[in-house]
């Protein structure tokens, strides 16, 4: 438990660091007031903008103001949407989270059986086939896969809608593409975990007890092999949420990633800052969850 508390403390520190980096990120392009005011603004207009957005205050004052409000969830007002940043994010969050969960579920549904199969048929053609599949999966660019699926499943076969949200079908193709980003790693992990487990002494004992093969594989071996897979899956979800921007953009899913994309295009700095922070916090939370899951599932890690 002490370890978890320590991780939590570090996580909070990391969040603060990310907040700082996000703040600095948006200040990168130089004078924000100029960007907001637009190319056709006069010097007077720029000064008005500067005052209105509090950009005339010293940098560290702006920084602490941002931190102070961010900690209570007030990320300010969007420059372009007529809404508070927090509201914007909250409205889009369910879509991104749903997409992430769909992607992860699909990934696990594919990876775990494939990994087990490859492990049980180690060094046969099936195993090599699975390895080839994971290698190709890692090499294919996700946005390209998205387009291919659109052409095949959306257009030629007319099976699924290719953009927007609204029904569960809208999440299928994006979910598949997202799953592909995690399938290679999870499959390899399952496979190596199962190979190691099946070669262990306790499996020999299980065989000596005359247990059925199914029970040996799915109860005894898998239970041990799955421990790292479950926790890595949580981390992968974190990566998926962070990387959702590409897929949401291609499929026009109005999630948090897409919001980030729009706000970059529009120089909507408060939104950009907030999106970076929110995604980072999700990742931190998920890695913490991964460590907790790891401790829960492995009796050797629990205290006493």
């Amino acid at each position: 438990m002490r370890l978890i508390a320590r991780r939590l403390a570090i996580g909070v520190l990391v969040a603060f660091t990310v907040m700082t980096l996000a703040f600095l990120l948006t200040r990168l392009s130089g004078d924000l007031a100029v960007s907001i005011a637009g190319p056709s603004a006069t010097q007077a207009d720029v000064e008005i903008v500067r005052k209105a957005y509090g950009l005339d205050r010293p940098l560290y004052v702006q920084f602490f103001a941002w931190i102070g409000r961010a900690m209570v969830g007030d990320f300010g007002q969007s420059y372009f949407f007529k809404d508070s940043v927090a509201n914007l994010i909250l409205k889009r969050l369910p879509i991104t989270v749903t997409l992430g969960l769909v992607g992860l579920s699909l990934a696990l549904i594919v990876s775990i059986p494939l990994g087990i199969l490859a492990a049980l048929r180690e060094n046969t053609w099936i195993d090599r086939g699975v390895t080839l599949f994971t290698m190709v999966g890692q090499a294919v660019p996700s946005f390209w896969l998205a387009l291919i699926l659109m052409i095949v499943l959306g257009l030629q076969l007319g099976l699924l809608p290719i953009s927007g949200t609204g029904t569960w079908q809208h999440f299928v193709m994006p979910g598949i593409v997202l799953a592909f980003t995690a399938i290679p790693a999870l499959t390899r992990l399952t496979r190596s975990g199962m190979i190691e487990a099946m070669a262990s002494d306790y499996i020999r004992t299980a065989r000596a007890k005359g247990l059925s093969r199914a029970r040996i594989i799915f109860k005894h071996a898998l239970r041990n092999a799955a421990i790292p897979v479950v926790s890595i899956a949580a981390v992968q979800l974190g990566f998926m949420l962070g990387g959702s921007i590409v897929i949401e953009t291609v499929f026009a899913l109005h999630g948090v990633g897409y919001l980030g994309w729009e706000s970059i295009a529009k120089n909507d700095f408060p939104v950009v800052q907030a999106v970076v922070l929110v995604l980072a916090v999700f990742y931190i939370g998920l890695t913490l969850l991964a460590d907790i899951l790891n401790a829960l599932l492995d009796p050797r890690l629990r205290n006493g």
Partner: protein
Amino acid sequence: MSALLEVEGLEVSFGGRTAAVRGASFRVEKGETHCLVGESGCGKSVTALAVMSLLARGGQRSAKKMSFAGTDLTALSDREMARLRGNRMAMIFQEPMTSLNPAFTIGSQMAEVLTRHKGGSRAAALDRAAELMGRVGITAPGMRLGQFPHQLSGGLRQRVMIAMALMCDPELLIADEPTTALDVTVQAQILRLLASLKRDLGLSILLITHDLGIVARIADHVSVMYAGEVVERATTAELFRAPQHPYTRGLLSCVPVPGRVQRDRPLGSIPGVVPAIGPGFAGCAFRSRCTHAVETCAREIPRRQAGEAHDYLCRLEPDWAELQPA
């Protein structure tokens, strides 16, 4: 009278190349403790695994005869063999630290053997598990049921393994070096436990070991293995009184036995190392280290009788005398 376990001409190889066992034959009678003794690498563990059909991938076995309580083991399918394992034949292993699944409680691992083979409720199985744990000398068995393997010491884990092996009242217990990984004091306790189980339950035990001391303490019959063959078989008393095979004699001279060793005489040792046996090896595997080897030892070796239930593989006559040192 047919034995409980009869093995004749067992051969085991891995990957078609390494011949780990090249014709082992022995019998385990009902209610007796039979020791398979030999140094590391002689094939004794592999023999036990082969009997239980637990060989690792790539292992092939064949035997002229291998029967348990009249059932031909070589004719059984995997499924049928699995029904015997843990049920009428049980096995415990050398490394108690890694032989139990770290993710499940002691109780659940023990209970599943009983429910698997004899059905019944989990609660009843857990009761029996607690009872058996008490039988093997584990204190507070009720509490142990809910504990995980990593919470127990090596000696305790081995007792759990023994109790687990007894869940279905097996007729035969195969123990592969059960005390090698344990402290000396714990060793003695485990041996005493095995002896008492044999006495009280009529359990037949096939014990694999490299330690002649253990043989002396607990075995009724002994089979000595060298380089994949059984080179001598006898009752324990006979073996220690009148060992015949040069290897056995060499082994015994290495072990200081109170009352037998003479002062001022060096302990014996066997020069040389166990040879690597490739396919197509003929003759006696010990000849490279034997002071009595002659040309014919590279060919067929006769099996000689040295008394009732005492035979050995050597050209030398029974009760042959040592060559005097030059």
